[in-house]
């Protein structure tokens, strides 16, 4: 970059405006590209936006902390958005009452299966203990997962990345895998996606329909609670 542009960049990077604007622009570009590619699940908007931002920050030599100073305003909205998930959930109240027992069973089975499978596969392929501990809570929403990771001795910031990676993977493979294995009920599809891929999966489930989205939100909320209890127990038992 020429001197003048570099100076301008350094000046702008010092205010939250740049990180915030960059996040919104990158996401909208990613979303437009996703639509242009016929909403292909592999063109996940989160993955595309992250790739764009990382490329730009790396090219300009901007540290992540400087970017996050601005981007934290978007990150902050995860809190109220989580609270807002109660609204679609409430809309599914009759269905929820009907499926209460089975959802509790599926919740417990899915949570334990998630933690055990990620642990065993990663250990069999030679991951370090710290990586294992950071991976264990990968299927729950970012703030819960980071809290669990910290509690059991993982790296919270690494956990955040693995959680998002898991969300993208679940959003990409979830609908197709469930369809291929004969799941037709949108409530079951949504619940399974929310169990494995938290909020990113829930965003994907809402594209499949209101019922799938609401059950995904339900699974995500419940799985956060159950995993917060299950992971420390399993981690103590396995390590």
């Amino acid at each position, binding site marked *: 970059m020429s001197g003048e542009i570099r100076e301008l960049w350094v000046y702008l990077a010092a205010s939250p405006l740049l990180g915030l604007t960059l*996040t919104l622009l990158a*996401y909208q570009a990613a979303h437009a590209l996703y639509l242009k590619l016929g909403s292909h699940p592999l063109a996940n*908007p*989160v*993955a595309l936006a*992250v790739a764009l*931002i990382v490329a730009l920050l790396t090219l300009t030599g901007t540290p992540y902390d400087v*970017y996050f100073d601005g981007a934290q305003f*978007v990150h902050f909205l995860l*809190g*109220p*958005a*989580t*609270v*807002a*998930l*109660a*609204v*679609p*959930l*409430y809309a599914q109240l009759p269905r929820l009452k009907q499926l209460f027992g*089975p959802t509790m069973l*599926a*919740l417990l*089975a*899915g949570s334990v*299966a*998630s933690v055990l499978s*990620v642990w065993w*596969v*990663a250990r*069999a*392929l030679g*991951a370090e203990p710290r*990586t294992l501990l950071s991976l264990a809570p*990968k*299927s729950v*929403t970012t703030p*819960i997962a980071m809290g669990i990771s910290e509690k059991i001795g993982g790296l919270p*910031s*690494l956990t955040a*990345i*693995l959680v998002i990676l*898991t*969300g993208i*993977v*679940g959003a990409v*493979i*979830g609908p197709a895998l*469930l369809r291929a294995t004969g799941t037709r009920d949108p409530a*079951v599809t949504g*619940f*399974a996606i929310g169990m*494995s891929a938290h*909020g990113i999966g829930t*965003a994907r489930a*809402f594209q499949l329909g209101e019922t799938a989205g609401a059950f995904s939100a339900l*699974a995500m909320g419940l799985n*956060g609670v159950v995993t*917060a209890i299950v992971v420390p127990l399993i981690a103590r038992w396995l390590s």
Partner: protein
Amino acid sequence: MLASLTLLLVLQLIGEVLVQWLGLPVPGPVVGMALLFAALVIRGDTPAPLRETANTLLQHLSLLFVPAGAGIMVHAGLLAREWLPTLAAVVLSCAVTLLVTAAVLRLGARGR
């Protein structure tokens, strides 16, 4: 819109306070979600402005994960070293979780 957004923030705040006081193992926003759900059940319907605000926020839920996702650049070194166990574990475990959850729920929901 403004009142609904304030309501969401107030419930999140109450959630955070309860988590601190009671030493709950879950984050404040999840407690806030439970509180709002309980309030809606008691009230018996969702006010239209709240539904609109919730829809607006949830429509772009994916966007909210982008800032944390860009943090991948901080752990580029570790991930370059351990990309195979990490990626394989995430993909396989994701598939296992999806299949186990769906199988148990389908089995339990049969005939309802």
